[in-house]
């Protein structure tokens, strides 16, 4: 298949641990099959920063800061089908644990009270401001398909991607879905 006919895909890594992208790489030899049909554009794996217009946008991670929201909205504009990859994107998951605390407490814990920190201060420049609450991506943009899991295993990712490539929405049931 020529490069032009390939389905263009971009992936982004918001507030998450990168485990979902690792799980994506766990497709192993199936990656060879996948890249016969798919062209990966901007992605933490390819290191291309600017998101071009693509067919499928895949999102790992929750929206934790203003940059996350910006990247998410950009991807939504640039893609036809948006896929939430993993529990952080879908539920907020572990990053959302900080929602129990006031933002000031969270920042102080991270930048000042950390055991290894000496004379720390809360940054005001360069790093994007945190959102008051960590939120899943469907609270910001329309999501077309979900791949639950923390992380979703390679089989779940393979199932979802092959379904999407076949023009179908992945359907989940007790045989193929996991939240853990």
């Amino acid at each position: 298949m020529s490069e032009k006919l390939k389905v263009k895909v971009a992936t982004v890594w918001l507030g998450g641990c990168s485990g979902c992208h690792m799980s994506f790489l766990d497709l192993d030899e199936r990656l060879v099959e996948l890249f016969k049909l798919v062209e990966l554009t901007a992605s933490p794996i390819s290191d291309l920063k600017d998101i071009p217009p693509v067919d499928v946008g895949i999102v790992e991670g929750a929206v934790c800061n203003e940059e996350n929201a910006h990247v998410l909205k950009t991807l939504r504009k640039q893609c036809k089908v948006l896929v939430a990859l993993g529990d952080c994107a879908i539920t907020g998951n572990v990053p959302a644990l900080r929602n129990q605390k006031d933002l000031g407490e969270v920042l102080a814990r991270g930048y000042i009270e950390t055991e290894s920190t000496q004379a720390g201060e809360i940054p005001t420049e360069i790093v994007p401001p945190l959102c008051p609450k960590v939120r899943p991506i469907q609270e910001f943009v329309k999501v077309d398909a979900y791949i639950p899991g923390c992380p979703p295993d390679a089989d779940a990712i393979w199932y979802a991607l092959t379904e999407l490539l076949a023009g179908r929405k992945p359907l989940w049931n007790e045989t193929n879905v996991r939240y853990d």
Partner: protein
Amino acid sequence: MKTLTLTIDGKICAGAAGQTILEVATASGIEIPTLCHMKELSPWGGCRMCIVEVGGIAKPVPSCATPAADGSVVVTKNERLDRLRKLTLELLFSERNHICPICPMNKGDCELQMSGYKFGIDGIRFPYLYPALPVDLTGKYLGLDHNRCILCARCIRTCDEIEGAHTLDLGNRGVKSQVIVDLNSTFGASTTCTHCGACVSACPTGALFDKNAAFHGALKRCAQVRTTCAECPVGCGLVVYTMDDRIVDVFGDGDSPVNRGHLCVRGRYETWAVKRERLTEPMVRRNGALAPVAWDEALAAIRAATRGLKSGEKGLLVSGRLTNEAAETLAKIRPSVSSVGMYVAENEAAMCGDPGAARDVFPLLQEADAFVLLGADPARLQGVVAARIRVAVRKRGAKLVMLNVRSSDLDAYADISSRMVGLERAFWKRVADVLKGRRKPVLIYGPNAMTSLGVAAMEKLLKTFDADCGPSVIGLPATTNALALSAAGVEAVDDLSRWFASAPLRAVHVCAADEPAGGARILREREVAGCLKAMEFVVLQTAYFSRLVELADVVLPALAWSERSGTITNFEGRKLPLRPALTPRGQARDDADILESIYA
């Protein structure tokens, strides 16, 4: 009983009047999804997963709380119900902080997670509320994380209806509703919690969890061994969950005719969630200190030390926890050790002897309308029996009269509770007034009914019940297998110093088996340490370290409860199996095998 006929999903189903739609459907093999329902508990109708359509009713109804009506047409599955059930699950998931990867019930032990899988919930359409909720880790054995609670009230109903303690309830209103302990206290500070752990078994999510089991392995992936709790003579069925030859958790066996899944703290937690120092190697005292040796060497040391002794100079003091099979061994080795005694609880020896015919006691407790406890304290020793009594008193208005030697947690539920001393005519009049008109009274007596005061009280009591319906009299011993062992010819001893004096003993073998405190309770009788010290040679056979070890010349490692096999006979006369859940630790060996290799 009036029978009903319903059409459920096109199938003609028969039920009885008073049954719910869910009960009729389940009995007919039609599965309806549920979350807040438990068949042992009263209907709640809180989660709305079990909704069904009933012909003639516009709105779906919760099948768990809707009585089946004759001739009604019920639909349990269609697109609308499926849509509504998914909606319910989405609302449940978005309401609190259900973060599967950090939950101890992750990997399939959570009914909410499994429902999510079953209904293919992949994303939630509602904004998550992310409430900041507390976690109560003050409980001795269990934790309560409100973040994972779905307010199904299964814990509340279990605590109220099965354990009868009513420690848990629902506090606040609406979205702020929360399970509360006592009057919004904590498990650590609770004055009513019995630590039975039934709430944890009932919890469908990870809101209530066993602290010692959390993150030690998914129950779903554990091996399960069904065995019998050997902590007291009730003989509750246990399901021991193990992984990699270690215990992950212990729950009650729902199929057991004795406890029907319910346990008390002794069987549920004390056997595995409390650290005990295990003895795993034979040891022989050399130059004043115990040194680990091989089994052959330990046995040789015993033979060498006892070679010159006559049968009558050797004593064997055994625990009442030994199995029926061990009793056969004891009979076999009798010629070489003539003085065999079984140490039991205070005043318990007089309860032993003829065990009488086997009978089902639990149905009697279930139906009783009055309980008289004489010298028995099930709240301390046989919690599952205490639970039945509390439920009967609180739910059915049964009367409770207690005559004991010390205070009991059941006193608070009693109509009359008194020590056994100084009872006058007015007292018996009050007892008679309480018991008047009771048709199914039960008299439960324990070891402390065997004192002269207890026997006198028993005589008085038996005359106090209405003449035309005397009580079912139930003996409730304290020691696991004391009745069956004594019936098999092992003499029960509750005065140990007298036993020591009754024969010209020069060597004694204490077989404590797997007693929790390593058999050290025999030292409670003040003279016993001196009696042991006066012996030329002391052998201790035990699973756990204790103060007794210091008094022994040879120490032999016995199997723990989780490694034992054989049978014990409970207070009803039921022969119940012990099945090993773990392989023996270290060099530990079966009690009967050890006795046989020394004395046979």
